[in-house]
C-alpha cells in the first residue's frame, strides 16, 4: 500500500473515531433537558432610534464597548461613528475603497477598522492629537476579500477572508503574526471568545472551526449546515457558539460536547441568515435575515419568541451592546435601527 493510500485510510478511521466519540456523548438533547423550562414568552421590541445618513447599503456594524457609540460601514464609501443615544454622527470617514464588507471598533474606543473587496484591513485612529480621523495602517496580505475583522486590543486584530484563511495581525508592524488555514471555502465571519484565547470562524464550506489564537491551530471543526455560513457568534460564557447560514437555519454548537445542540428553523423561513447575536444572558438569539426581518429565538428551547419588522430591505448586520440594553440592526435600506 502506498503511503498516500495509508494516509487516506487513517484519515477515514479518524473521521469515524470522531463521529463515534460524538455519538457516545449524545445521551440527550438540549430540547429534552429544557423541556420543563418556562418559555420566554413573546419578546417584543420597538425601534427607539433610526440612524439616517448612509446613502447606500449598510454591510456591517459593531458597538463600541461603552454601549453608546457604534460604527457602521456602507458601500456609499463611508464609515460612520454614531452616538446612538442622540443619533448624532461623531465621525463620517471617507474610505479609500467603497467596497467595504466589514468594520470593527477597538475595545479602547481609539480605533476603527474596515475592509472589503480591496483585500486590505485599514486601521483608523479616532483620537488623533489634531482631532481628525486618519488611516494609521493598511494591513495587506490577504489574497481575497476581507469578510470580517475583530480587534483583540489596540495592537492586534483578527481578520477572515475570501482567500479561505484567517489571520492575526500585529498592527504596529503591519505583519501577519499567525495565519489560520484549514477552511476550503471563503471564510465569511469570525467571533472572538470572551477570554480572547480562541475564535470561531464560519465559511462557505459549510463548516465552522475553533482556532487557538496563540498557536494558530484548529482545535475543532463542526459540520451540519448544508450551505454557506454567513455569521458566527460566541455564547456569552465561551462554551458554545451559534452560526447563521444560507440554508435558512441557525445552529448552536457546544465546544465541550463537540457537536450541534440545537437548530433554529421554521418551515416558513426560507431565506438566508446574514447575522447573529446573543442577548446578555444568552437566553435570546437574535438573527438577521434576507427577508428584511430579524427573528428572536429562545436559545434553550429552540422556539421563535418574536419578530422585528421594520427594515425595507435585507438585514445585513446586527449587534447587541455590551450592557445588553439594545440591539442595533443595519440594512441594505441604508438605515440602522436601535431596538429594545
Amino acid at each position, binding site marked *: 500500500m502506498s503511503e498516500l493510500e495509508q494516509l487516506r485510510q487513517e484519515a477515514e478511521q479518524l473521521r469515524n473515531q470522531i463521529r463515534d466519540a*460524538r455519538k457516545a456523548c449524545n445521551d440527550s438533547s438540549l430540547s429534552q433537558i429544557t423541556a420543563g423550562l418556562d418559555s420566554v414568552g413573546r*419578546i417584543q421590541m420597538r425601534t427607539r432610534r433610526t440612524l439616517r445618513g448612509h446613502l447606500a447599503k449598510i454591510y456591517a456594524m459593531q458597538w463600541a464597548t461603552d454601549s453608546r457609540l457604534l460604527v457602521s460601514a456602507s458601500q456609499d464609501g463611508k464609515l460612520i461613528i454614531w452616538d446612538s443615544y442622540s443619533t448624532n454622527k461623531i465621525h463620517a470617514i471617507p474610505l479609500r475603497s467603497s467596497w467595504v464588507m466589514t468594520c470593527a471598533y477597538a475595545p479602547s474606543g481609539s480605533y476603527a477598522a474596515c475592509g472589503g473587496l480591496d483585500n486590505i484591513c485599514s486601521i483608523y485612529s479616532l483620537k488623533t492629537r489634531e482631532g481628525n480621523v486618519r488611516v494609521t495602517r493598511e494591513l495587506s496580505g490577504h489574497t481575497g476579500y476581507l469578510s470580517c475583522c475583530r480587534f483583540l486590543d489596540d495592537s492586534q486584530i483578527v481578520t477572515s477572508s475570501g482567500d479561505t484563511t484567517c489571520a492575526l495581525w500585529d498592527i504596529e508592524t503591519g505583519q501577519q503574526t499567525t495565519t489560520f488555514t484549514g477552511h476550503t471555502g471563503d471564510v465569511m465571519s469570525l467571533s472572538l471568545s470572551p477570554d480572547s484565547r480562541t475564535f470561531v470562524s464560519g465559511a*462557505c464550506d459549510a463548516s465552522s472551526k475553533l482556532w487557538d489564537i496563540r498557536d494558530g491551530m484548529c482545535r475543532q*471543526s463542526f459540520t451540519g449546515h448544508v450551505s454557506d455560513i454567513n455569521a458566527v457568534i460566541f*455564547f456569552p460564557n465561551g462554551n458554545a457558539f451559534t452560526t447563521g447560514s444560507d440554508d435558512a437555519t441557525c445552529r448552536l454548537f*457546544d465546544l*465541550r460536547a463537540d457537536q450541534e445542540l440545537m437548530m433554529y428553523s421554521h418551515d416558513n423561513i426560507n431565506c438566508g441568515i446574514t447575522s447573529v447575536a446573543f442577548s446578555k*444572558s444568552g437566553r435570546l438569539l437574535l438573527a438577521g435575515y434576507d427577508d428584511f426581518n430579524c427573528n428572536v429565538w429562545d436559545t434553550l428551547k429552540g422556539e421563535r419568541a418574536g419578530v422585528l419588522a421594520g427594515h425595507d430591505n435585507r438585514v445585513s448586520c446586527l449587534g447587541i451592546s455590551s450592557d445588553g440594553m439594545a440591539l442595533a440592526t443595519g440594512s441594505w435600506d441604508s438605515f440602522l435601527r436601535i431596538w429594545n
Partner: protein
Amino acid sequence: MVSKMSSKMVGSNNLAHARRMVQQLRVEASIERIKVSKASADLMRYCGEHAKYDPLLMGIPASENPFKDKKPCIIL
C-alpha cells in the same frame, strides 16, 4: 451581498496535503468531550443565573431606558 467569489478547492491529491489532513484529524480526534446532557444543563444554568441581568429578556422600565422615546420639543 456582493457575490462571494469562491476560491479554488484547496484539497489536492498530493502527499503533503494528506499528511496535514491526518495530522489535523488526530488533533481533533484527541479532544475530551462531555455528554450533551451536561453541556445542556450547564447552558441552562448559565442562562438562569444571568437572566436578571439581561435587559432585552426582562424588559426595561422606561425610567431606566437610555433609549426611551425622545419627547418632542415645544418652542415656547
